[in-house]
């Protein structure tokens, strides 16, 4: 913290001259970068559409209300499908991600140089591709339908559950493992009595959290043809049936709120 001489004695400053200059240059670069990217991004933008946006928004709103409640009778099945996609997807992801997590954790992996990087690669590639993109791929492979949605949710969730679970495994108390081993337990028994009880609460929390997210994501998977209520959403948007779109939004929000309530209740009971 430099002190600089001023006319009325020394004045405290937070940074030295060069530090302040570097900071200023950094900000300048950042602003420059932002301006450049903004220019590049909006080069092809038709601005008259944008200035028209408030009127468009008002117009859209007037078309969206009141919601077409009678459409509800055609939403029950897609809603059931949506919940199934999320639940089955989460369950399949659990089956696939638990082994991956044990292979990725430093203290349980069979080989740190060979197996662990592979497991981490699985986790990273699963995490960096959104479930909607997974669905896009799977729909072209498997055809439109619920199966593509379930698999998309599962593939995206492997990385999420796997990452959080392997971090939980790495943080376990080694003394408990040692104590179980000292009783003469085999590797499977050490896993069953020494490691699993320690990570079970974290595991329950992670999977519930992911199920919650998956309900959210499965509502839009239908946009690319992977089943669920998103199919109805796409059909309604494409035919500009905005009162139906409003009803679908309401149903989606209600489902998300309900799933949050359910997972909060279950979490409170389990953990």
């Amino acid at each position, binding site marked *: 913290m430099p002190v600089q001489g001023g006319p009325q004695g020394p004045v405290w400053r937070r940074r030295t001259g060069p530090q302040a200059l570097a900071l200023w240059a950094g900000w300048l670069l950042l602003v420059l*970068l*932002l301006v450049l*990217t*903004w220019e*590049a*991004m*909006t080069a*092809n*933008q*038709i601005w008259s*559409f*944008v200035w028209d*946006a408030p009127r*468009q*928004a008002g117009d*859209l709103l007037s078309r969206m209300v009141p919601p077409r409640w009678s459409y509800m009778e055609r939403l029950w099945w897609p809603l*059931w*499908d949506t919940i*199934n996609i999320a*639940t*089955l997807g989460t*369950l399949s992801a659990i089956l696939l991600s638990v082994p991956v997590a044990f292979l990725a954790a430093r203290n349980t992996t069979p080989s740190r140089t060979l197996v662990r990087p592979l497991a981490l690669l699985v986790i*990273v*590639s699963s995490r*960096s*591709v*959104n479930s*909607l*993109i997974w669905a*896009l*791929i799977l729909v*072209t*492979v*498997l*055809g439109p*339908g*619920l*199966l593509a949605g*379930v698999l998309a949710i599962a593939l995206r969730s492997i990385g999420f559950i796997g990452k959080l679970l392997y971090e939980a495994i790495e943080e376990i108390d080694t003394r408990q493992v040692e104590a179980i081993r000292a009783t*003469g337990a*085999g590797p*499977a*028994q050490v896993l069953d009595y020494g490691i699993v009880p320690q990570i079970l609460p974290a595991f329950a929390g992670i999977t519930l959290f992911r199920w919650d997210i998956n309900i*959210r*994501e499965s*509502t*839009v998977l239908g*946009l*690319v043809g992977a089943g669920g209520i998103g199919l109805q*959403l796409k059909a309604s*948007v494409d035919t500009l049936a905005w009162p139906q779109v409003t009803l679908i*939004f309401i149903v*989606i*929000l209600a489902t*998300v*709120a309900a799933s949050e309530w359910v997972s909060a209740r279950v979490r409170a009971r389990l953990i």
Partner: protein
Amino acid sequence: MPEPASIPAVPPASGSPRTWRRPPLVADWRLRWLLILGALGYLTLAIASLDLDWARIGEGWARGLRLLSGFLSPDFTSRWEDIQAGLLESLSMALTATAAGIALSIPVALGAARNLSPLPLYLACRGLIAVSRSLQEVIVAILFVAMVGFGPLAGFLTLAFATIGFLAKLLAEAIEAIDPGQVESVRATGAGWWQVLDYGVVPQVLPRLIGLSLYRLDINFRESAVIGIVGAGGVGATLNTAMDRYEYGSAAAILILIVAVVLVTEYVSGWVRERVH
């Protein structure tokens, strides 16, 4: 599991079983079986509702193999112009939306921190955060595309809006968790509201703000790859086109590039966060 035979059996005392058993998760056996049967029943119904079309899935194998071969030999060259434009657009969208989102979410976060703001303002800001969090990016993108037309501007607005919900919530929680002693001591020097904020609050939450912003930049890039599917620009639009044309090589190249960019941003943001803390 083999029973350890070498341990001498303890004589049973007054008929009580001497082997320890793990207590079950649900103590009441009726409730336990009800839960198990319910879960099995649900699973049967859910799997039955999948409505598998085996002929189509069998047909899918060939396509799956082609997709896989596309991944093994990704085609970066034939659509390079489009891919490059899409990636740049996505990066621009992510960067500008994160900057705008930060600028918007700081005041919202201040309003949503109970230790800084009055109750009506607190409720309004918390309401805004709840709305932003509960609407999925893709859905917001549909609305913005309907309002401002196709293109990256709709994506920018979507991501900025989504950033508010994320950043303002976590920042507000960080502000609520600050040490009140520092704020009080700055206030005791006679500082005004701005000065208290500048010297008492900001230094305490700045590392967290930087970390969260970088994390959000990461998320925004990933999301920018998705909202292109509904017409909000970015590399998602390029990917969608490639899939529609069955150009699996190009699609694979795009996916590999997305993963690579995500890895790089994750690594960089991790490095910066470590240095800030």
